[in-house]
């Protein structure tokens, strides 16, 4: 498979970029932020995502989706990174949809159609501490009555404050298990967390939450497989968003280098800045290659897809971090102002870096996998 987009994928990219630039440019994020929007996302935009076929990109056609693959999901995630658009796409279309697609019962799969239509918002609750550590999930689910009783605390639950249903990863005697939980269930406490980038997550506390056995997704003790599938696609899509945000910050900066004058010269004429820009360009090309390769590996069902997604997430994270720092520095004083957009890219990249494991997390896993 060549490491370039197919014609159809390029058309999807043009469609997603065009749609977001028209309907949800950075001004859209600013409006949600400055009006302290109660949802933090636009439900109209989410429905439009459904109409465009974006929301159901990886959902099978039988379940009302577009039946496309990881590369297509990554294309949309990259576009969302460029416009910094708050959207349920990652939580619902990527993470929750992958879990339900892999292991959901027929009744649970009904959510897929609602996600695809941009009508429902779902969340995946994995993290429990300040760092992503899916191997250390402590939330417990004990058998009780004809179902389970859950106790634990989740954090960094993307869109958790507006979720119609939350997928919770918890330990049972049989092993890691996924539960589909209605946040209205007694014992569920949801606290919205407005983050540095004006996107939203939630802390979800579970205190003696009783659920029926049919809340289990797949089999009891068999949660690891579908969770991993979601995390792998999520990491590759987060990498794509990082590439989008980093590349867009770079483009804006290049434009500034071509127009800003000091000492009677365009600042882009200074070799000190040219070399840094050229280095950053190179790093971005590496991040793009690693990200597309990971998405393709997922679509091909390759055994190294998990590792490829880790490489992509780590590389795209580090590179985007460099891109936004250079963007602010090269813009000088105006880069520090809220009025200029570059600071918003820096904030978004910080959040995306923590999401689903930062570069250090993935470097550590890679080292272990390589036996050192």
């Amino acid at each position: 498979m060549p490491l370039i987009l197919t014609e159809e994928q390029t058309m999807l990219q043009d469609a997603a970029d065009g749609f977001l630039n028209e309907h949800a440019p950075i001004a859209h994020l600013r409006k949600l932020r400055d009006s302290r929007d109660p949802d933090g996302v636009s439900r109209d935009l989410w429905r439009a995502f459904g109409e465009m076929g974006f929301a159901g990109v990886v959902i099978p056609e039988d379940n009302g989706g577009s039946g496309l693959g990881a590369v297509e999901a990554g294309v949309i995630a990259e576009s969302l990174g460029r416009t910094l658009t708050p959207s349920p796409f990652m939580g619902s279309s990527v993470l929750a949809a992958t879990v339900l697609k892999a292991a959901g019962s027929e009744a649970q799969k009904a959510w897929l159609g609602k996600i695809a239509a941009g009508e429902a918002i779902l969340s995946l609750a994995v993290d429990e501490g300040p760092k992503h550590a899916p191997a250390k999930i402590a939330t417990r689910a004990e058998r009780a009555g004809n179902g389970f009783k859950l106790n634990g605390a989740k954090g960094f639950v993307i869109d958790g404050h507006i979720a119609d249903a939350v997928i919770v990863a918890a330990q049972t005697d049989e092993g890691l298990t996924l539960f589909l939980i209605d946040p209205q269930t007694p014992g569920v406490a949801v606290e919205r967390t407005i983050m540095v980038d004006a996107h939203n997550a939630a802390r979800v506390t579970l205190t003696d939450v009783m659920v029926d056995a049919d809340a289990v997704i797949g089999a009891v003790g068999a949660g690891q497989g579908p969770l991993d599938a979601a995390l792998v696609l999520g990491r590759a899509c987060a990498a794509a968003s990082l590439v989008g945000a980093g590349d867009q910050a770079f483009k804006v900066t290049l434009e500034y280098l071509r127009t800003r004058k000091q000492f009677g010269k365009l600042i882009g004429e200074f070799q000190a800045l040219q070399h840094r820009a050229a280095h950053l360009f190179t790093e971005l090309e590496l991040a793009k290659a690693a990200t597309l390769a990971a998405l393709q590996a997922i679509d091909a069902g390759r055994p190294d897809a998990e590792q490829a997604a880790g490489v992509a997430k780590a590389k795209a994270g580090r590179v985007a971090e460099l891109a936004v720092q250079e963007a602010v520095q090269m813009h000088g004083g105006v880069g520090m102002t809220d009025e200029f957009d570059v600071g918003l890219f820096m904030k978004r990249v910080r959040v995306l870096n923590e999401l689903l494991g930062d570069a250090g997390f993935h470097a550590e896993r890679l080292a272990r996998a390589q036996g050192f």
Partner: protein
Amino acid sequence: MTDLETFRAETRAWLEANCPPEVRGPRDGDEDYVWGGRNAVFKTPAHKLWMERMAARGWTAPEWPSAYGGGGLSREEAKVLASEMRRIQAQMPLASFGIWMLGPALLAFGTEEQKQRFLPPIVRGEIRWCQGYSEPGSGSDLASIQTRAEDRGDHWIVNGQKVWTSYADQADWIFCLVRTDPEAPKHLGISFVLFDMATPGVSTRPITLISGKSPFCETFFDDVRVEKENLIGTLNRGWDVAKALLAHERTMIGAMGDVGVGRPLGQIATDALGVDEAGRLDEPSLRARIADYDIDAAAFRLAMERVGDQVKAKQAHPAIASMLKYYGSELNKRRHELSMAAGGSDALEWEGERSKDGAVARDWLRTKANSIEGGTSEIQLNIIAKHLLQLPGA
């Protein structure tokens, strides 16, 4: 099965049957390389056999047209061949500036007759080539070369000096930049010519480097006769050929940063330094640096693959080779810094059997040239800034 799957199965079977055990596994050192040529040296008879078997299929130059002895493979087939070779750790059958640098330029600029004459012996490893580019006064400013070619009707007489000519003392022929019009602006008076290193008036002198080795030479031309039929491309437009060839050279040097080369650093380090109870390299800071290197190396390998695919799909800017050259050479230097750190004081040995005469240290020192040869890292960054980013005044 798709055609590509069939090709993979056949290739795998052929490699299993034809790749001798002696040429499988990581290289021990430079002596494992087969460079071919009139005075070819082979580490073992198996190395010779391996080169000949691969050359017979054109697989020393897999993507060249079969009409010129190449493998005639599509890009996708060539990728399959490369991955199947990696699978059994088959070593490269033939190292060759003819394949990496001159061949692609000949395919683009040579006449049909020149292609027929020069390409097949390159594929078969019969003629070893060297590159006459840099001169004592022309390093980064390559287009300022002074080596003169005087017109004598059906031939030129060449006088001048080249430097940093890789393996000039072992090469059979040279591809060389000479000034054919001293009056013209510097880029417009250069021609690209080929001649035999055995021609009277050619002499070479090896240069000893900080590694103690002499992969480069000074090369002197004293009234050397060069036939006009050996001009590649248009007279006085050799800079176009030179630039195209430099792109291939840069890709080649960049490819030294390929993660698949040599033993994994993590393995080298755990063998040398041991692991803790959890099985982790017993040197946390080095471990983190190696893991970061591995991520960058993996991403770089994919970037090389992507550029290759973009070239094939005609989506690549020619200057993109500068990106690979810049990153790959810096990455290779990093790899060898880590390899020295992993070796500790063992890696400092310069002589003796145990260290194979200081192979680790000498390789480390050799890589310092990677970001200088073929255009320095700073020149590559200039090219990226000018041609890929269109920054002003670059």
